[in-house]
């Protein structure tokens, strides 16, 4: 029986009916990781013994008819989620020797529901990047084309699911870090409403924007993961106390907003893919309405300022004293801090800290950071205004397909522009999902469905309906 690329829901049925054992599933995934991952670099570490032990336990539970939501399902965590007793590096030299002293709530919740973690996935350093190339472990390779990036920052998570190494991965999304790599790798990437998933134990980049999320083969799989991960966490002060469900019925037909202006700067083949997604949803009975949304370039400028300002503040904790890299060349306390940080952080992280401190201290008539917070309110209001007319929005996930590896400095500015269509969702705290909607030159294309705050179930259900009517999410790379 071929287990690679099986959707989570199918694996779940096979495990439940005991057509396959959890040990068989986990052994299959570990063998596949062993065989394929040296080409892709999805994993920063694997947990063979722990996974096999958990699988044996899952088989005992299933035999005793004690079946949990995700019993025996192979997953991996982005390497910014703390797992007690295991390295959590954020793909940075700064945290190369850091062993987490506690579990992130997301890790606890998924374990409680029976999911089995096979390892930690590669990522851009401290989640700062849109190509997966700023990792201290080296770039993650796109499973569809070995000359292309997997996207970022959740590069390893997206590529691991796309390559059929695990059924699902956790990721994080500060400005598109789940949705853009999902689009590049041809999988489903879901970012819930800010506050739905606990941030406790998730190493911070920009606290008011960071949100944990999910990579899976389908929206139906994402809904199951959502069910296991969602919930109020008193240990995270920004965690929402609202009750959540992925299974609330959604009325049909929906009014779908279509921001045509977003498509103006896209290539013709990319526009055709988005238009085809629109056609599928229209054929399903949904009504499309033209809408105007806040300028994506303004959203990007706002994001640059807020994310980097918060990053400069969050990363000030790395001082070479309590944890993380400690330089051996220091002569005094100040030097210890400066030298440790200079040796521990990569260039992209240094760049963001420097720009962060610039926006926190400079500006005309107040700091740039304060100005960006005001523009952020206007952006949120712009989306709220659009949601008075529509239930959900269809938009591109990224302005291109996966970029070639090793871009030069000039192209690195284009990498920043990759987040143009995703950052507003984080600024406004909205739920959004990227789903595969086509291919250009054998590379996948993604489109986003964006909902109003706390309409996560509507977003998941419409994505699921789209996937029942299309087969882009069923395409897999030849590995």
């Amino acid at each position, binding site marked *: 029986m071929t287990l690679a690329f099986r959707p989570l829901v199918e694996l779940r049925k096979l495990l439940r009916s005991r057509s396959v054992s959890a040990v068989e599933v986990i052994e299959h995934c570990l063998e596949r990781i062993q065989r394929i991952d040296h080409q892709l670099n999805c994993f920063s570490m694997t947990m063979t013994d722990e996974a096999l032990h958990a699988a044996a336990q899952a088989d005992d539970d299933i035999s005793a008819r004690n079946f949990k939501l995700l019993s025996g399902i192979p997953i991996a965590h982005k390497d910014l989620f703390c797992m007690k007793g295991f390295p959590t590096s954020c793909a940075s030299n700064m945290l190369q020797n850091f062993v987490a*002293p506690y579990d992130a709530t997301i890790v606890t919740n998924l374990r409680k529901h029976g999911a089995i973690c096979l390892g930690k996935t590669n990522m851009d350093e401290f989640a700062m990047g849109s190509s997966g190339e700023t990792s201290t472990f080296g770039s993650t390779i796109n499973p569809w084309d070995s000359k292309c990036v997997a996207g970022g920052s959740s590069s390893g998570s997206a590529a691991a699911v796309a390559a059929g190494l695990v059924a699902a991965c956790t990721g994080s999304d500060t400005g598109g870090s789940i949705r853009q790599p999902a689009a590049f790798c041809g999988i489903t990437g879901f970012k819930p409403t800010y506050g739905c998933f606990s941030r406790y134990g998730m190493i911070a980049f920009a606290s008011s924007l960071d949100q944990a999320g999910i990579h899976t083969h389908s929206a139906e799989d994402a809904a199951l993961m959502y069910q296991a991960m969602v919930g109020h966490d008193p240990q995270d002060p920004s965690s929402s106390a609202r009750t959540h469900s992925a299974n609330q019925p959604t009325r049909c037909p929906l009014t779908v907003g279509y921001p045509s202006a977003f498509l103006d700067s896209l290539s013709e083949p990319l526009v055709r893919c988005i238009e085809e997604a629109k056609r599928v949803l229209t054929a399903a009975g949904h009504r499309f309405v033209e809408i105007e949304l806040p300028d994506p370039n303004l959203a990007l400028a706002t994001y640059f300022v807020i994310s980097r300002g918060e990053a400069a503040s969050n990363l000030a904790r790395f001082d070479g004293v309590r944890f993380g890299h400690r330089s051996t060349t220091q002569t005094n306390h100040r030097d210890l801090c400066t030298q440790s940080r200079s040796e521990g952080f990569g260039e992209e992280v240094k760049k963001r800290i420097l720009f962060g401190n610039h926006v926190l201290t400079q500006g005309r008539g107040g700091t740039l950071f304060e100005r960006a917070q005001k523009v952020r309110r206007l952006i949120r209001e712009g989306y709220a205004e659009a949601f008075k007319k529509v239930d959900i929005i269809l938009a591109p996930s990224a302005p291109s397909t996966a970029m070639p590896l090793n871009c030069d400095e000039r192209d690195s500015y284009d990498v920043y522009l990759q987040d143009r269509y995703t950052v507003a969702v984080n600024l406004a705290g909205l739920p959004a999902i990227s789903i595969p909607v086509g291919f250009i030159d054998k590379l996948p294309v993604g489109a986003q469905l964006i909902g109003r705050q706390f309409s996560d179930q509507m977003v998941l259900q419409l994505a699921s309906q789209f996937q029942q009517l299309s087969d882009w999410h069923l395409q897999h790379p030849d590995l």
Partner: protein
Amino acid sequence: MDDQSLDLLLELSALRLTDAERIRISRSLDWLIEYVELLYAKPIEEVDPLIHAVDHSQQSRPDVATQVSAGNLLETQTNHHRDGLYLVPKVIDT
């Protein structure tokens, strides 16, 4: 960005750069500074800053300790500690 401004930011950020990093990062900062000029195109005088996207009040929880202190666990992250205190090089010259 001129050298003096960059030096000030480096001091504030507790960072040092190699010569090659300095050239690349300077260029990138210039690009970003120019890009975020867009923020000055919007009139915002009457707008309140938005700190968090989702409006919810601070959650309160029972004033009961539920976790053991992470202090001892965190100390295992470095060899540079003694008697519950972190060891650092001399802070003040006498």
